[in-house]
């Protein structure tokens, strides 16, 4: 049972509009050296899925730079490998807008390319999820249960605020979906939260796309799952490992910080035989100077640290000057923090320069974001 992968690179861009102004959700930096797309791609490769299509929308230059030939994920292949599918305008099924806004419309727009998939099953994943999951388990459960569609879920206890940002499934004892709630306003307590991963047979996927085009359906959840769950066999697959989801800049910040504070989160990167792959520029190791003091931090290669760094994440090529203190912050690639600076709860994008003596602070509920290439 061979499977192909489909990755949606833009679906949740608006959740963290600060970071996606210059890039897709898929190419948002994460955890010191990764981009969010590394999680779905690595999950697929580690589950023997080597034929992957990434559906893009706009702003995908940074994504193309990151993916390159795909060799860092073992996806530079003659058969299959990774392909980026930009919008195919003339084939648009959605006649009102020129660009898709939902997952179903995205699928409709590239259906001609999807039709070429020769694998029996298709795994679809978004790029807002942080997990190291064996997708074979979902595919196997999908096959053995004879489901028409299987969605991966995480069992969670939700506050009403969290529920209002989630898609929640209800299921019977045999994991068959009985109800689906999209961003319910007054919901709290236990719920199966959708991990934005779907498994279908290729045949079922294509017939669903064709049918939804004919009926002008737009939403997979509301027009397909909610309307057909009695007639069709839709199932959940409960995942028990670490799972993080990015729904806002606060959650983006918190998910990054949990890589420092939470050992089980950090173990994502060291799961036996299932590394998270990424492509990074070639850099030397990091140099810790004589006056450096680094604690509880994740540091990538190519940095030069002369000051203090605590509870922070440094991407590659970052420079931290003397007498500088960086606390609770995330500093992207090649950013320079000069001497005598104080940073607290800051997210500094790529190539930022923070000049001598600056004091900047946000709060963990509202981190201070500095945009790419800015000088402060």
């Amino acid at each position, binding site marked *: 049972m061979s499977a192909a992968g489909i990755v949606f690179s833009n679906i949740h861009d608006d959740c963290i509009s600060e970071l996606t102004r210059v890039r897709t959700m898929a190419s948002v930096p994460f955890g*010191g050296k990764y981009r969010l797309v590394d999680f779905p791609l690595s999950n697929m490769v580690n589950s023997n899925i080597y034929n992957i299509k990434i559906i893009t929308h706009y702003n995908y230059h940074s994504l193309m730079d990151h993916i390159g030939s795909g060799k860092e994920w073992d996806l530079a292949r003659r058969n299959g490998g990774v392909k980026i599918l930009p919008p195919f305008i003339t084939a648009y099924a959605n006649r009102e807008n020129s660009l898709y806004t939902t997952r179903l419309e995205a699928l409709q727009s590239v259906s001609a390319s999807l039709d070429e998939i020769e694998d029996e099953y298709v795994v679809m994943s978004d790029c807002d999820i942080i997990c190291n999951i064996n997708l074979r388990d979902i595919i196997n459960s999908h096959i053995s249960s004879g489901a028409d569609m299987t969605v991966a879920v995480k069992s969670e206890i939700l506050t009403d605020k969290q529920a209002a940002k989630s898609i929640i499934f209800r299921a019977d004892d045999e994991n068959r979906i009985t109800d689906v709630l999209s961003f319910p306003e007054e919901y709290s307590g236990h719920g199966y939260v959708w991990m934005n991963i779907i498994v279908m047979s290729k045949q079922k996927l294509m017939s669903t796309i064709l049918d939804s085009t004919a009926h002008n359906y737009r939403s997979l959840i509301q027009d397909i799952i909610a309307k057909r769950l009695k007639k069709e066999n839709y199932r959940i697959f409960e995942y028990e490992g670490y799972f993080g989801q990015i729904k806002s800049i606060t959650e983006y910040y918190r998910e990054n910080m949990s890589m420092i504070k939470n050992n089980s989160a*950090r173990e994502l*990167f060291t799961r036996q035989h299932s590394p*998270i*792959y990424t492509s990074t520029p*070639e850099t*030397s*190791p990091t140099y810790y100077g004589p006056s450096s003091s680094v604690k509880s931090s994740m540091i*990538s290669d190519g940095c030069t640290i002369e000051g203090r760094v605590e509870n922070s994440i440094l991407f590659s090529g970052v420079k931290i000057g003397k007498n500088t203190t960086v606390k609770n912050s995330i500093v992207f690639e090649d950013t320079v923090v000069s001497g005598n600076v104080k940073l607290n709860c800051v997210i500094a994008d790529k190539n930022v320069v923070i000049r001598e003596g600056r004091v900047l602070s946000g709060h963990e509920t509202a981190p201070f974001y500095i945009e790419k290439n800015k000088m402060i």
Partner: protein
Amino acid sequence: MYRHKDCIAMILAGGQGSRLQAITDKVAKPAVSFGGKYRIIDFTLSNCVNSGIYTVGVLTQYQPLVLNEYIGNGSAWDLDRINGGVVILPPYQAKNSADWYKGTANAVYQNIDFIKRYNPENVLVLSGDHIYKMDYSKMLAYHRKKDADCTVGTLDVNIEEASRFGILTANEEGIIIEFEEKPKKPKSTRASMGIYIFKTDVLFRYLEADEKDKGSAKDFGKNIIPSMLRGGLRLCAYQFDGYWRDVGTVKSLWEADMDLLGSMPQLNLNDRSWRIYSGYRPYPPQYIGDNAKITNSIITEGCEIHGTVENSVLSENVKVARGAHISNSVIMSGVKISKGATVEYSIIDSDSVIGAGATIGSDKDGKDKITVIGSAVNVSAGEEIPAGSILSGNKYSV
């Protein structure tokens, strides 16, 4: 069918490097780990690519497994190419003979067919076990300008060290008038780096003649260069002034690693105009715990540090537990240093485990007594390994 090349490189990477002791038990010297995330051959390969030389033969012989696997298809150095790229050249069985490489010259001689496929004007012969950043294209331009038959890369060494090298004398025009391999009484301090550019036809002629000479050691320094000089060929010296180390001994390997430390290191690896490339491995960023103390050290990906690290170089995936103390040492990939262990003036090779409270080496004699722990050695808890000891991986092999 192969496109003509101006210059191709032949890297001699078959040496054992026996003076590196336990470190080269299982790997050839060019594959020895250096500078945290590199292997020694990264420097020569990166120099080739940065100099615009994209056809590179790597001649391997001693313990080639790690080296072959590491070089792979050469993609880490952008040397995975349809036309050229990197090709591993081990000794092989030919129709009438099968031979190990008997010397540096013989190794290149056995691969004349490889060179002929590219029909280059010049052949650059390099050694795969030196640490330096050098633009070979400048040397090639000099070689052309001088219309030399052979150009030898040279550098100045200390007079005490001179008898370890090929020592030469050149006139004002840079033409070599005298060459002596490892002289007992060196006449100058201008030493050959073991880097040569030959006109291809001249190289072939001398390699073939040398092959017929039964008494020859089949070595570039001992035989080819002296006989070219005797033959009246035009040999030029090209002076290199940058950082260069032959890390042939435990002490020199340790010293070269230490040269990477400091705010203005002797060898700057963070130089974006001359990147040194290394093989790609998917390790997470380094994690520094809340009790860690790190000063004047370089550390790379996959490491997890909870103890104290000073004046040291750590490769990938090194785990340093709380209360462990590492100073003035080189720790290679996958090593685990347990709680309360002390490591001073040592080189610990890959995948070794240092038990809790163990003591490796001491700072009493400093760099004159470097302790070496070979690959995959288990040092039990509380054990004391005196300064200057060498524990071989085989002895404790797991």
